């Protein structure tokens, strides 16, 4: 039976300015999981990650990484943990190769071995050609890759990524997704925070949503998506309308004169809608999701909370 990669018990954090960031979080992440930790800005995601990574001091609670209590043996726990922070956290004036080799040294890896590991890691992340460049001249995307290279250099069993694809173009984001999927399939447990809910939906098996310092949801991605009752669709129509058409059992509104916004329940057939529109002489030229499915649910949950 798999053990827990991460166990958080009654984790609390109050900052010096009396801001209560965490009100007693309980969370477990199974070994091998690809786990999404979501929440709006200021919800407590970065505080949680900061405490796990020892960048933030906790007010109360317990954190165990692969069954190692961080209060009892943090160095051992840190050896199993890799962290990709939200903000760039390397010296921009150092060379790429030096940044990664030095990080390996901080984990006690001898220089020769560190050089070998650095070469492998930089090649994996497509950074080897840029190894002698100063970090400051790298593009935003390559800086993100460098952050990941640093976090992976000591081959952690648990990798935490705090918004790793923020500000990264779509192509690179997809490349990073493939890379993260690959290392997860090879056994690394991954915890991801992101604002791109599509990213969480694509990558993660399990999900927790945090808001106002409390966990408001902790379930599997499948279960969460199963709960979606209504999906919104935008239908582009050939003609201009002043009022939305009236069709029994369907909620329809006008997005603009050429676009219908339709809410379709899980048990409703979209064919029925098309038939009814056709009867009224309305031709649909194209159709798209109103927004990401998970986004709708996320907004609803946060609003409720």
């Amino acid at each position: 039976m798999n053990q827990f990669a991460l166990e958080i018990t009654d984790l609390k954090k109050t900052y010096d300015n009396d801001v209560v960031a965490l009100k007693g979080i309980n969370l477990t992440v199974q070994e091998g999981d690809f786990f999404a930790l979501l929440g709006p800005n200021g919800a407590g995601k970065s505080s949680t990650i900061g405490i796990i990574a020892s960048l933030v001091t906790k007010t109360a609670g317990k954190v165990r990484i692969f069954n190692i209590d961080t209060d009892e043996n943090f160095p051992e726990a840190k050896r199993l943990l890799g962290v990709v922070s939200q903000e760039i956290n390397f010296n921009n004036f150092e060379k790429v190769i030096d940044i990664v080799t030095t990080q390996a040294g901080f984990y006690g890896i001898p220089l020769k071995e560190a050089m070998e590991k650095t070469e492998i890691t930089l090649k994996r992340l497509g950074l080897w050609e840029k190894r002698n460049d100063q970090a400051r001249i790298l593009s935003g995307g390559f800086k993100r890759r460098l952050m990941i290279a640093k976090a992976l250099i000591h081959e952690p069993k648990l990798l935490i990524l705090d918004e790793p694809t923020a500000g990264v173009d779509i192509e690179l984001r997809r490349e990073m997704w493939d890379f993260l999927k690959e290392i997860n399939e090879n056994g690394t447990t991954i915890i991801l925070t992101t604002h791109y809910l599509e990213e969480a939906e694509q990558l993660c098996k399990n999900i927790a949503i945090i808001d106002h310092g409390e966990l408001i949801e902790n379930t599997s991605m499948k279960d969460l998506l199963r709960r979606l009752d209504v999906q919104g669709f935008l239908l582009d129509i050939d003609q201009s309308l002043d009022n939305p058409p009236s069709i029994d059992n369907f909620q329809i509104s006008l997005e603009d004169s050429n676009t219908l916004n339709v809410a379709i329940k899980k048990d409703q057939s979209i064919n029925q809608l098309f038939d009814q529109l056709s009867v009224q002489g309305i031709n649909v030229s194209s159709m798209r999701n109103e927004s990401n499915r998970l986004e709708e649910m996320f907004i609803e949950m946060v609003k409720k909370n």
Partner: protein
Amino acid sequence: MSRKNEILISLITLIRKEIKRYLRIWIQTLVPPAVTMSLYFVIFGSLIGPRIGSMDGLDYIQFMIPGLIMMSVITNSYANVVSSFYSVKFQKSIEELLVSPMPNWAILVGFVMGGVTRGILIGCIVFCVSLFFYPTFSIVNPMLTILVLLLTSILFSLMGFINAIFADSFDDISIIPTFVLTPLIYLGGVFYSINILPDIWRNISMANPMLYVVNTFREGMLGVSDVSIPFALSMILLFIAILSVACLLLLNKGVGTRQ
């Protein structure tokens, strides 16, 4: 690999990184002290010095050499650690250290060693520069000289570390060197012996910690001093111990480093 070896490797990595940092910007770190001290030697040593005559029975330029070396060591050890540690805080690259299994004492030793190596290197550079102006200079007590050089650079590196921990802006890392260190150094017997001062100023000068550092070093280099050497060495060691404990407590509590 044993935990001890692992810590040793991480410590060596940090020291190497710190040394590479100041060597990479050598034009900002190593050249200015050599230029400034050359000017001191030209103006105060060669031009004004002969008019002053002797100080404590020595040529004025000869008397000045240990003081100027010490001044460079103090300011550079302090400046290295305060700027380096504040920079890693400012750039957030301190997270590279905090997420690693390195113990806090190794982080402290790594940064202090950066300051110590730079302080000693600058001391050697200034000594070499002084030989252009006073080629016959010979060191009376090399062991004491090296010991004081080492202890002084440790002491002021630790002070720089504490300054950096509390610093919230670049202004904060220049206030102490400008308004505290520099006046104390200038009034600490670098350019004169306190024996030439009136009694009241001599007594006030005895409260200046720089006086003990400069005079102990002068005792090592020239064999003359205005203070008791055992007392001065004890005080330096005591302050190193106090500051080391303070630095470790601050790091363990996460003051200035962890939120």
